[in-house]
């Protein structure tokens, strides 16, 4: 019985690992193919199945008709994601702390309703906001700029930061802030001097989630930017719809996905230590 379970488990883990890795391996293999190798049907192993070519990779750093320069979109993507994540994290952390420690009341609206308001922004389908955002940014002259996208992404990421941090602060004993206040801190001082230094695990998890969801957004980048500012997901899709150079697509995809694999390592560490238990509930 035990042996049976064990075998089943091993097979399951093995199968799932293959499933997870498969598209990456396929992309890696494809990125070294040329037009001949691709049109002759599915092949897998370079040198054995096909003659490898580096044109997929070189094209990413070449301008003009022969290539699609990836450097610009990469920098734009990174800038938008980092700035928006940072702003969301700061604002979200403050709000989450307020919601977990003070009582707010505005007519019938109480803390739980405000928290729900923040988190419910995730329910809003992007399409509901796309057209008004378009018009609003146009009014502000922020269409097709990093600033405009940051503004929109903050609205997208703030709920995530509030969600993770509210749960995290709920796990920090109230007595800690009270103690800081009895020791002579103002409520704001208590937050900065005592709570914040003890919130690193929560901040890391919230920050990681912001990065993931920011980096991976496509829709707003797609509707609100055109030529001046271009993010990675949008440029790959525009590549997709044209002549379909599979080798460039694959290399492009791998590069765009790589930075966040590092995030996975950080997230795993916090998850295994159990420090995420407070951050996620």
């Amino acid at each position, binding site marked *: 019985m035990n042996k049976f379970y064990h075998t089943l488990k091993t097979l399951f883990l093995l199968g799932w690992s293959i499933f997870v890795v498969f598209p990456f391996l396929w992309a890696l293999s494809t990125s070294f193919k040329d037009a001949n190798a691709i049109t002759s049907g599915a092949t897998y192993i370079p040198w054995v199945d096909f003659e490898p070519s580096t044109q997929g990779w070189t094209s990413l750093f070449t301008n003009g008709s022969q290539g699609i320069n990836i450097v610009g979109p990469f920098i734009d993507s990174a800038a938008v994601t980092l700035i928006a994540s940072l702003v969301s994290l700061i604002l979200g952390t403050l709000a989450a702390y307020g919601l977990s420690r003070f009582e707010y009341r505005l007519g019938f609206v109480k803390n739980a309703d405000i928290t729900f308001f923040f988190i419910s922004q995730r329910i809003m389908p992007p399409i509901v906001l796309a057209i008004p955002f378009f018009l609003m940014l146009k009014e502000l002259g922020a269409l097709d700029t990093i600033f405009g996208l940051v503004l929109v992404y903050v609205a997208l990421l703030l709920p995530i930061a509030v969600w993770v941090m509210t749960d995290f602060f709920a796990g920090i*004993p109230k*007595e*800690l802030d*009270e*103690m*800081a*206040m*009895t*020791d*002579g*801190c*103002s409520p704001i*001082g208590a937050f900065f001097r*005592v709570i914040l*230094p*003890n919130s690193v695990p929560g901040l890391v998890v919230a920050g990681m989630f912001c990065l993931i969801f920011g980096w991976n957004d496509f829709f707003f980048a797609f509707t609100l930017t055109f030529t001046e500012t271009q993010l990675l997901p949008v440029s790959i899709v525009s590549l997709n719809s044209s002549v379909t150079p599979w080798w460039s697509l694959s290399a492009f995809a791998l590069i765009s996905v790589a930075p966040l694999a590092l995030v996975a390592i950080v997230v795993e560490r916090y998850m295994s230590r159990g420090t995420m238990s407070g951050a996620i509930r």
Partner: protein
Amino acid sequence: MLQIDHLTTAKAKVSLDNVSFLFEAGNIYTILGRTGAGKTELLRALMGLNPLINGDIKLDKENITKRPIRDRNMSLVYQQFINYPHLSVLDNVAFPLRRQGKKKAQAQALASTMLTTVGLGDFLHRRPSQLSGGQQQRVALARAMVKQSRILMLDEPLANLDYKLREQLREEFPRLVADNQESVILYTTTEPREAMELGNTMIVMHDGEIIASGPPADLFAHPPTKDTASVISDPPISFISGFVRDQVLYFGEGQLAPSEGLQLPPDGPVTIALRPDAIEPGGAFTAKIGLSEFSGSQTIIHLDFDFGRAIMMVEGIETFKSGDNLSISIQAEQMMLFAPDGRNITLRDN
């Protein structure tokens, strides 16, 4: 010096109900009460952590009811060992001094002296998480005392410690606060022995109210009400219902005439309270032994009477078999009587 008038907090599972008291500087007040009696709520209300719906707090005649927490000149030690996890032991204790505006070097010097006093001189640069529970609570105590605030509050500070550590800290506590003349110390506990051992004045709380206060020995000898008697007795006091008719006290099949040790009230129902020292082996009453257990050099015997249950304590370690019958006597001079409304109506000749 610290005067509280009619403190009342919003109705909750545990809330304060019209609590008034005058605390004098240089005294240690132990606040005794069961879980949920309102002890913690009182301390938190004084600190400004729990909002009041009524009442005033005056410190040196000055009304501080609305003053922000940080300006109240009070400190509080929690039941859980709470320290700043991100700071070293030394910085933990220096923290309140730094907030008072002291220079870093001066704050650390004062903190280090205080830590030596509480016996942690060798642990200045550890993190609180690297200390044992008892040591963590010493850090919290040092942090509270180093400020030299007017009011020092300790909320069941020993409740989460091992038995022997508790005993040791209880023993040290008077020394730690020995040179305190200017401040009021409030110490809450659920254990009658601790309250009696540490306080010059004992305050008994029950259901969000102060129901008695006074020197511990007096309160123990003459509890004003049945609730007080019940809260301050450990091992538990036993209550038996009876009645008085024609100057004879009846309970179950027993009866008792007035004596020098105990006068009887006029006719009517009474509650008889028996502490372990009111029952002695050998005598006219018969009881069944429910269980016997040791406590130090004494044996505690749980007795089942036809009129109720009671506990007897016998010096020395002796084995009593459960189920056996035992003849005992009830000492009238140790017995207490309470009226149906809970008032103590014990009257003795002396």
